């Protein structure tokens, strides 16, 4: 399972992650951070393949993709 965290303090709402994600994990949202930028919504984290393109393209290094290894043995 993948856990995607967007740091709302540092996100500037440029939407590059929404465009770059090959699996369409992110979604536009109307959630504003303290600076007034629209922070994307992680709508389909279960589709994430951990290619890390969102992490690498993020100009503010606000995205973290964690691979949570809880599927082992199941």
């Amino acid at each position: 399972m993948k856990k995607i965290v967007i740091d709302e303090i540092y996100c500037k709402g440029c939407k590059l992650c929404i465009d770059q994600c090959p699996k369409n994990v992110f979604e536009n949202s109307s959630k504003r951070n303290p600076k007034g930028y629209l922070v994307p919504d992680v709508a389909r984290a279960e589709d994430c393949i951990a290619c890390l393109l969102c992490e690498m393209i993020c100009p503010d290094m606000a995205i973290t993709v964690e691979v949570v290894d809880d599927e082992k043995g199941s």
Partner: protein
Amino acid sequence: MHPVAEKYLRKEALPFIFCPGCGHGTVVNAFLRAVDELGIMEELALFGGIGCASWSPVYINTDVLHTLHGRAIPVATGLKLANPGRKVVVFTGDGDCVGIGGNHFLHAARRNIDMTVIMMDNQVYGMTGGQVAPTTRTEARTQTSPYGNPEPPIDACAVAVSCGATYVARWTSAHPRELARAIKEAMTHKGFSFIDVVDQCPTQAGRYTHGTGDPVKLLKIIKNMSIPLARAQKMPPEELKGKILVGKIHEDGAQPELTDMIYALMEKGKAR
């Protein structure tokens, strides 16, 4: 915040001054990943001139020198000669590197001094208000060329190769993975290494030259204009007009390096 950023950035200086969607942030991101993989944070010495791009080392929690406009390379040369153990990296913009500091760039490449120059090329003077830069494309509209730029742009990579740089590569902000790999290669290379990173400027070049301030559209424009070198070699030259050729352009590890030459000369002088 990403763990790599948590580890290497100065929290008190954040957030980045870059506009939302600016490509410079992606370059800093790729640089930190390369540094993290190499584990050379303690050996780094970073330099910046003046401009948006040159501001980027300021956020990295290591030794940083912020110098005059275009003069980052001579200061870096001085530090490298005085302390050859340091890994010297210069962050510079297109105007800073080939415009104002063009002369310094030529001579650092000629001397083949061991340093890495990362030129963030957004084809405009962004911080000062969107003036025409030496890398601005012909007929591009900027604040100081409202009827289109009459001048042809400079090809910084070709200049670097012709002057004697021993590692030259060009990537864009649309290729972050390849860019991080190139930065890693450049930092491990002994000699003058130069990376031209074409990136988007949504506020100045985006709005006036490309007609959109949307970073997503600008990144698509850059991606569609990029052609890998291997594919470009099979294409006729007229199809390559106005395209960005990406990849490793030149590498030569056999050339003598300036710091080694000077220290050998000093030993020779002492022996006399």
